[in-house]
């Protein structure tokens, strides 16, 4: 049985990893998706272990993906990141 703090640290680790993308869209997506994913699986207590294992695998994928995407960072700043004047 995974403990509460383990789940929270996994969530934090995923959010931290997602922050490292140079691409705005990927950053926002991972943030949104991890939070939604964790909230969805919150409710069903019997599936918690499965969900945790899945999320751990996803974290590995995420970290690898960040490294790949950092190889080709976007050349221009995304319009969404430009502050309104």
């Amino acid at each position, binding site marked *: 049985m995974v403990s509460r703090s383990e789940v*929270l640290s996994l*969530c934090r680790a995923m*959010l931290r990893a997602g922050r490292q993308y140079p691409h705005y869209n990927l950053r926002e997506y991972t943030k949104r998706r991890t939070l939604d994913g964790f909230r969805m699986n*919150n409710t069903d207590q019997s599936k918690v272990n499965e969900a945790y294992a899945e999320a751990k695998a996803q974290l590995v994928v995420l970290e690898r993906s960040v490294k790949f995407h950092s190889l080709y960072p976007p050349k221009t700043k995304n319009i969404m990141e430009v502050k309104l004047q």
Partner: protein
Amino acid sequence: MASLSTTSLSFKAPSTRISQVLKKGSSFQSVTFGRFTSSTSKSLRLQISCAAKAETVQKVSDIVKEQLALTADTPLTAESKFTALGADSLDTVEIVMALEEKFNISVEESDAQNITTIQEAADLIEDLVQKKPAA
């Protein structure tokens, strides 16, 4: 040694109508502040004490409001617990992440799990901002 468990300073923050009561940490034994209210921005004074500055607390409150989608007139004091405002633990994680980004700091796992109120968050932020020489 003057025995003080908590000393309260009540300030009227100039920009908002919320009065924030800040508690000093009990590691201080030197000076006892009597109760005084000031209307000008005395937030600079607090640099001497270990309580977080009013601006930091204000910034933290803003972020919390945004994350939890609270209306603008919800009473938000420094002592509000996140759970009391309707946040579950995932929301707390989100808030801590947002604070990390905003203040450009990095919160440890152990610290992050102990944050329950706005005041604690502000204190931790102050701590980290001072330790790391931020540009």
